[in-house]
């Protein structure tokens, strides 16, 4: 476990280097084999582990060089899912939205090999990264289960099994992302029930990332989500979610987004540091984790590095300020 106050981390994905983007396109056209692609994914993973160490991040991620979409990656590896046709997400961006066509099951572990590989490259802790059951359902078509709750609970058992495998493989931090959790605020109880299935009995620190939606609509109920840490986009929202904590105090660890991942420009270190100070009004330094708002996969490698450097340098400034304050 990290010993720093204000431990720094990231949300999970990083931009892929050009050679990997090209290789993925070649593989999709049948012009590159799976083994060759995996070699390049491993190379890119090594590069990202090294970069994170050089930048000085405390808790690392594997960067998801081997994933495209955070739901499709799992859907492609689970029985019961089929990969659907192309659907537009915005502008000229399309994705293959998965279809739950039958009872879901997990033939084998889906992320453990990549966790073990990336952890073997560093002495710093690497997070195990999963997509939560509510988001897996909400971002898929459900043709198989009679209700949304039925589907979410079935998926929860699968994510639970994967989380347990990650823990057995040595993961000290397991992140179960639920960016869709506020899609239907009236279903927050289902998401909480499902997360209870996933995290029951885990001794690893559990984290859930939530972004892009109406967080106010699920607060304070979301504090009942059975994880140790909530990981929230804040910079993109001008930190307005912090105002909610005035009325209902925040009771978990908070991973606070202090740089916007959808802007090409990186915030200055001073602006990022101010974000941390805002968070400190509500959460103690040992429970506050500075990081970017969201996964950085839409940014270039250089932009990702700049954003992470801003997070680490801003944190150093605030740590120094805290060291000067008498206890």
């Amino acid at each position, binding site marked *: 476990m990290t010993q720093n106050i204000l431990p720094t981390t990231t949300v999970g994905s990083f931009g892929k280097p050009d050679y990997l983007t090209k290789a993925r396109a070649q593989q999709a056209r049948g012009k590159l084999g799976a083994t060759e692609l995996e070699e390049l994914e491993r190379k890119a993973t090594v590069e990202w582990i090294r970069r994170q160490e050089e930048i000085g991040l405390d808790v690392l991620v594997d960067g998801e060089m081997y994933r495209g979409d955070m739901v499709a990656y799992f859907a492609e590896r689970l029985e019961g899912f089929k990969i659907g*046709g*192309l659907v537009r*997400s915005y502008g*000229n961006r399309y994705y293959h939205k998965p279809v739950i066509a039958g009872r879901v099951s997990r033939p084998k572990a889906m992320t453990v090999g990549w966790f073990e590989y990336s952890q073997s490259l560093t002495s710093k802790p690497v997070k195990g990264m999963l997509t939560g059951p509510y988001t897996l359902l909400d971002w898929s*078509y*459900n*043709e198989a289960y009679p209700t949304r709750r039925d589907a979410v609970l079935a998926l929860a058992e699968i994510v639970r099994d994967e989380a347990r495998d990650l823990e057995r493989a040595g993961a000290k931090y397991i992140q179960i992302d639920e960016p869709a959790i506020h*899609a239907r605020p009236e279903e927050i109880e289902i998401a909480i029930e499902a997360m209870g299935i996933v995290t029951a009995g885990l001794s690893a620190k559990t984290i859930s990332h939530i972004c892009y939606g109406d967080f106010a609509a699920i607060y304070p109920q979301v504090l009942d989500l059975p994880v140790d840490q909530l990981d929230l986009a804040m910079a993109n929202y001008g930190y307005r979610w912090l105002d909610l904590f005035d009325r209902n105090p925040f009771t978990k660890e908070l991973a606070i987004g202090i740089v916007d991942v959808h802007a090409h420009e990186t915030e200055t270190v001073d602006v990022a540091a101010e974000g941390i100070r805002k968070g400190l009004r509500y959460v103690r330094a040992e429970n506050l984790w500075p990081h970017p708002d969201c996964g950085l996969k839409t940014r270039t490698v250089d932009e990702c590095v700049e954003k992470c450097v801003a997070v680490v340098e801003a944190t150093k400034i605030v740590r120094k300020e805290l060291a000067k304050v008498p206890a």
Partner: protein
Amino acid sequence: MTLKTTVIGAYPKIGEGLDGQELRRALHRRDRGEISDADLDKVYDEVTRSTIGEIEAAGVDVVNDGQIRWDDLLAPFARTWSGVEPGPLERFYDNNTYYRQPVITGPIVTDGRSLVRDFTFARGVAKAQLKAAVPGPLTFATLTSRDDHFGSLEDRVLAAADATAREIRGLKDAGARMVDIEDPAVVASPRHIELAREAYGRLADAAHALALVSYFFPPDAVLESLASFPVAAIAIDVRSRDTTAFERLDAFRDKYVLLGVVDARNTRLETAAEVAGYAERALKLVPLDHLRLAPTTSLEYLPRDIARAKLAVLVEGARLVTGEKVPA
């Protein structure tokens, strides 16, 4: 007498396979500077033409242009209205689909012709009855990310309504007899229903055949209020969530009801009997000539082949109700 069918909102812009993806390729090529905006416009027109043809071929009675040029519901006006700019991306209600939140920078000004060119083109193509569509004022105003001009939500909604009224008049002058006002905020934010009613009062003079189109959420909290809105038709989604609407449809006795019975957000294909079953339930309280069957919302939430299959079953279900022959 037949039970008529219609569509709502946007149709998938691309299909499976290379042939169906000309618009996607053209947008990439325009971004790389390989083709001009005029070349891209031709592709937009061709895809609009084939979309209208596809909706007509399914046997739908009242068609639209599929909104092929719209990036999202608010984009046509966020792009053209003075005083409004497209802002940050956000998820569109409970969908994993994004829209640009409008940013209000000054008074809203429009010449009312934002959609006239597209409607005129579609009118030249469509053989079936054609309707136009505009984003609703409550949705436009409540999904704004920042407002540097208006002092209140009320002022913003009413200003959006005045600008929308000008757009509807522009469409009417271009020959539009029916206009859908897509306004999911009316059911998503029922607390603003009285403000919405005031806004619709400003639209009422602009055209006679306006439809208030709601979706994603059931109308339960506002159903009787909607019945007194100054519009000719109300569209409601009876599939996305549980609803008591079927037992209360008599509230709409002087209106047309566009009943969203085919789920446009799930690939599971309804049977014709299922579609007919929803219609039969509605027909207990709505006369046949005042009922229209529709998808719940834009079919763009589905892959194109599924959207096509959904339209086929919509028409088949409607024909089943009246014993009409299904078109081959």
